[in-house]
């Protein structure tokens, strides 16, 4: 039986693994279906993680050393998707894709979040064929071409800036008339000549054909006027949805207490309503959705796991 099963390999899961193994637990596995790293590996920059100060490095570069450090004390990597987690008696049973089961004394769920869909017409149809949620992955395919960015938060403006260095023009469509991003990020984007702002507007339709996206219809929410723009790339950054499926039982009920927005209710020790089950990172209530906070959560959860196991023995 595992001392601790960590589900999810972003900053929260990796840090939990580091703390759990360095703290003396011998049998700890991190379940992530590929190379760990998490959402930050899609980011073009990281400016707010203290101790890492290099504007030439991307999120992918940033997570590189995490792999080496976090697996240095015996953390095992299981490249398998966890379907469900159940508490059976005093321990947990994880059911993996394909049906295999694994038992663990404790569990830390750090599955994080995925980019939210904006729900305009054609979003699903053209996803991967013009509609993208990863500028570092796909910006390359729009070299010297105009693209649209939807959103007004930090991610939207950071990635708009990244795209402005590759693409001819970047049109940022935002439903309000001001941005929610950090002041330095807004300032840098507004000073870039080929970034154009379209305020009070949303994407009404993504249009195209079997070759993919060919343009967007932009609707002004105040006047309802629709403007068409020929433009083959649309990058959507409108927030994240938490990944909580693993916490659902066979009848689709959550195994622990959740908030109304389906985030896991935890206390300051990352304890859920189920003894031995901890949650860290973007999946928890009030998550600031920052790498540094996710890492902090992971360390807290792992230290609590160590205490919990000591109390049980």
């Amino acid at each position, binding site marked *: 039986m595992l001392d601790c099963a960590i589900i999810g390999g972003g900053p929260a899961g990796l840090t939990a693994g580091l703390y759990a193994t360095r703290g003396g637990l011998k049998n700890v596995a991190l379940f992530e279906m*590929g190379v760990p790293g998490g959402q930050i590996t899609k980011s073009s920059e990281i400016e707010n993680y203290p101790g890492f100060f290099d504007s030439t490095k991307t999120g992918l570069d940033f997570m590189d050393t995490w792999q080496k450090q976090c697996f240095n004390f015996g953390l095992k990597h299981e490249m398998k998707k966890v379907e469900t987690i159940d508490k059976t008696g005093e321990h947990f049973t994880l059911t993996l894709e394909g049906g295999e089961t694994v038992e663990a004394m404790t569990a830390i769920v750090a599955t994080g979040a995925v980019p939210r869909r904006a729900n305009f017409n054609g979003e699903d149809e053209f996803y991967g064929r013009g509609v993208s949620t990863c500028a570092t992955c*796909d910006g390359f395919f729009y070299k010297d071409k105009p693209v649209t960015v939807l959103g007004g938060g930090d991610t939207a403006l950071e990635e708009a800036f990244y795209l402005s260095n590759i693409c001819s023009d970047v049109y940022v469509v935002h439903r309000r008339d001001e941005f929610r991003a950090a002041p330095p990020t807004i300032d840098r984007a507004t000073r870039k000549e080929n970034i154009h702002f379209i305020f009070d507007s949303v994407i009404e339709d993504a249009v195209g054909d079997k070759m993919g996206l060919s343009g967007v219809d932009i609707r002004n929410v105040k006047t309802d006027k629709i403007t068409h723009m020929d433009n083959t790339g649309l990058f959507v950054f409108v927030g994240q949805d938490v990944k909580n499926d693993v916490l659902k039982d066979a009848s689709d009920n959550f195994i622990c207490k959740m908030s109304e927005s389906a985030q896991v209710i935890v206390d300051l020790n990352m304890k859920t309503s189920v003894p031995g089950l901890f949650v860290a990172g973007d999946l928890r209530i009030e998550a600031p959705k920052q790498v540094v906070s996710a890492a902090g959560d992971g360390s807290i959860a792992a230290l609590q796991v160590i205490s919990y196991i000591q109390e049980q023995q």
Partner: protein
Amino acid sequence: MAKYIDLTNENFDATIAEGVTMVDFWAPWCGPCRMIAPVVEELAEDFDGKATICKVNTDEEQEIAVKYGIRSIPAILFFKDGEMVDQMVGAASKDAFAEKINAQL
């Protein structure tokens, strides 16, 4: 140990011409591509002799990427006897890719 095949303009058509082939379009700067890299390596071993597992570096092989209309990576295309029969976009689990390959065998 079976390994995946790196495809270029020279060997692409000949490689996908017969049998079932999975092609992973990737690039070095793409986080989700790197995430699934070990999954692709394992698939190459698991399907040795049954299906051909390949990769295309879209940074170096832009012509192939354009030919198949690749605009998001990782893009995973499935071919049977040279015809594209299925595709996926984004990182997924090994079982999810294996299911797509098995469906063509």
